[in-house]
């Protein structure tokens, strides 16, 4: 293409001052997300204050770590989930992949495979499920609800088959490296959660892939016509989601020192709830890691606080649902008022 002409930047490019207002008033979708962010943070502070007043062992460093530790599994799944939701779909199959991760990790360890190798294989399995999801959704054109409902069911069944219907206790009771306490008494899986959070935050915010993901999720047709590889971009989200779900399964096993075929079978609903609570829209193109993180922490704090107050667990379930509905409804209401 050496003989092709170039429309290089016009000379005026360099003369444009970079001192114009750094960022204009935030408008549109961004503002909506911002409103919901403020809203949610306020809500989180409110429930923390409430629980702190009701139970004196709530607001302690130890309990903070406990909350993070219980949030880690759903948190990791949600980090994957938010990418699929930004892409305009969602991933129900995590409810089947987490169990596979759990069972497979235990089986491999009991077969004498080393921890890193076992973890690697587990991640690859999750990745494979993600690839299948991506293929079925983008190439075969199956709706994400149906596609991932199908793979969820298959994956869940495979987990049960692998486990032959029973739990699989670790032979080596010291194989809890994933969840062992390390630096500052914080368990490894919490560090993993935080590390992944930072990584995917960067991915979404500061990479070409991240930009494309938002573009494809928000305007699939325009993105395709702009020549983006929409199938690759969308599939990438499902691969990430599957991989992280499998990791979450391994973490559950490591916590329990047992592979359980029923582990985390509610993770699809929990993670979608957290992501939506965090301001993502199921219509695609909107959402982020910070919001998701707040969503995860709210759900974990609620269940931790209620457990400390000895609220029966079925009430916790009702409370979680109510919080989701009220938070999302209120934020929609503020948007409507803002747009009048």
């Amino acid at each position, binding site marked *: *293409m050496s*003989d*092709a*002409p*170039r*429309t*290089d*930047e*016009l000379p*005026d*490019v360099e003369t*444009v001052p*970079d001192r*114009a*207002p750094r*960022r*204009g*008033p*935030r*408008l*549109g*979708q*961004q503002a909506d997300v911002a409103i919901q962010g403020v809203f949610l943070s306020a809500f989180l502070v409110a429930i923390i204050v409430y629980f702190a007043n009701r139970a004196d062992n709530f607001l302690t460093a130890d309990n903070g770590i406990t909350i993070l530790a219980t949030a880690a599994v759903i948190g990791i799944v949600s980090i994957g989930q938010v990418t699929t939701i930004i892409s305009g779909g969602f991933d129900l199959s995590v409810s089947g992949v987490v169990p596979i991760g759990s069972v497979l990790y235990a089986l491999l360890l009991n077969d004498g495979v080393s921890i890193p190798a076992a973890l690697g294989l587990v991640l690859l399995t999750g990745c494979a499920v993600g690839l299948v999801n991506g293929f079925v959704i983008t190439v075969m054109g199956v709706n994400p609800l149906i596609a991932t409902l199908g793979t969820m069911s298959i994956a869940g069944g495979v987990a049960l088959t692998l486990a032959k219907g029973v739990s699989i206790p670790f032979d080596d009771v010291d194989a809890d490296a994933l969840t062992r306490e390390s630096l500052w008494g914080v368990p490894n899986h919490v560090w993993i959660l935080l590390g992944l959070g930072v990584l995917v935050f960067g991915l979404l*915010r*500061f*990479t*070409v*892939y991240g*930009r*494309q993901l*938002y*573009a494809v999720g*928000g*305007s699939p*047709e*325009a*993105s*395709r*016509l*702009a*020549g*983006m*590889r929409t199938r690759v971009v969308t599939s990438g989200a499902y691969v990430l989601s599957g991989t992280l779900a499998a990791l979450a399964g391994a973490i559950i096993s490591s916590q329990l020192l047992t592979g359980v075929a029923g582990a985390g079978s509610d993770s699809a609903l929990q993670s979608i709830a957290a992501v939506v609570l965090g301001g993502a829209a199921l219509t*695609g*193109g*909107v959402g982020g890691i910070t919001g998701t993180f707040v969503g995860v922490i709210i759900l974990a704090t609620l269940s931790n606080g209620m457990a400390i107050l000895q609220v029966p667990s079925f009430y916790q379930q009702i409370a979680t649902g109510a919080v989701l509905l009220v938070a999302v409804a209120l934020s929609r209401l503020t948007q409507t008022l803002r747009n*009048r």
Partner: protein
Amino acid sequence: MTQEHPVGDPPALRVEAVRKSYGPNAVLKGIDFELRSGEIAAVLGENGAGKSTLARVLAGSIQPDSGSLSLGGRPVQFASPRDALRAGVAFIPQELIYIPDLSVAENICLGNLRGSRYFSTPGRILRQAAETARRFDIELPLRMPIARAPLAVRQKVEILKALGRDSRVLILDEPTAALTNDESDALLELTASLARRGLAVLYISHRLDEVKKLCRTAHVLRDGLLVATHAVADTPVRTLVAEMLGREPTPPDRSTAAPADDGAPGLALRGVSCPSTVDSVEAVALTVGPHEVVTVYGRRGSGADTLAECLGGLHREATGTFELFGRRHRIFRTPRAARVARVAYVPAERKTQGLLLKTDIATNLTQFIWTKLGVLGVLTGRAERRRSRALIQRFGVRCRAPGQAVGDLSGGNQQKVMIASRLAGDPVAAVLHEPTRGVDIGARGEIHGLLHRVAERGVPILIVTSDIEEATTIGDRLLIMRGGRIVDRIDRPSLADQAYALQTAGGDSE
């Protein structure tokens, strides 16, 4: 209140001191005017002047911050479009909304089904739609699914949908922007006949020739203020344009003649064909010199639209080859192939095909150069904002900041963002499909000028348009399509060639 009107009857619509701001951005700064029944008044103004905002206020889809409206002398307040519709204000928005899977008849009756409140039968819907259409003397293919109907039909559907039994005011926001000449003429006729029945019409348009034909008065809006009201018949177009822009218009920029062809074309199509039920292309060959701007004009169904789409990679079934600076390619079958070959394609439909509507201006402007702006795929946002600011300036986009949501821009400014994003990518050649749809006269000249400057740098430019004025003024060469083939060519066309071009493009298809 109603002075100086001999009859003494109140105006169909009176607008007083209407203001509307979006955040710090005052869009309407106190608008006053009146509309009499049977009158067709134009609202003119640059992109972003506030025309659509005014229309949306009148139609109840947004609420003004202050000011009042009255219909037939009765003060009204609209909390929703439904209120406005009931009070007799029909509004055809700039971008149409319809339900693609329903038939024409069902769309007409949508939300307005008579008879039982909850039940309706297909037969009854058909009868009701037919009756409505007959009442306004409009002929429509009632059973056709609306997604397959041509735009002109959809627009008529929209009008029927909006007109109730007792509509008194009809507001049309750039209704002809996407129509071909005959379709526009039909719509103008329809509008005129509705006015003769006593409807008051507010007609928003960038096409002054239509305004001349259709309207009695013209209100000129500039930066949210009504700067002038004229009787159209005794006002020269030049005055209207100057008032819209707030300055004298610059004559179209076609200073330099294209350098003579040195034999090697920049872009050459050979035997491009594409089957299609309504708009097929048959063995089209054409060349565009490295410094040339070539326009292709054709009516709907002539194959011109499909030809443009083929060059954007929108048709998998397209066949043929083309050369880019001596390099042979197969005709693009995917949009990606066009991008890889660095052929910029500006699609005709900005909202659905061209813009990433949920994101901001900077994202849209830089979407084709992300990889280039980033280092190993990492982007910080700084380079994007910087480049966006440069593009905003170069293309004269009226906005507040690169971070503003692109959906909040006026239609014409969205169009500029779309074109800018495609040309930012350093293309080897550019194909533009209806590039100035909905763009005001000033900006249209600017865009045309820009395209010429890009061409001067050695980028062959092909423009496919159904706007005869654009076709005859911007190009170094005009190709006319009819029945899927190029049937004629006019070198260095001018406005004087319009009549001939229209005739060659075929009037007998009607």
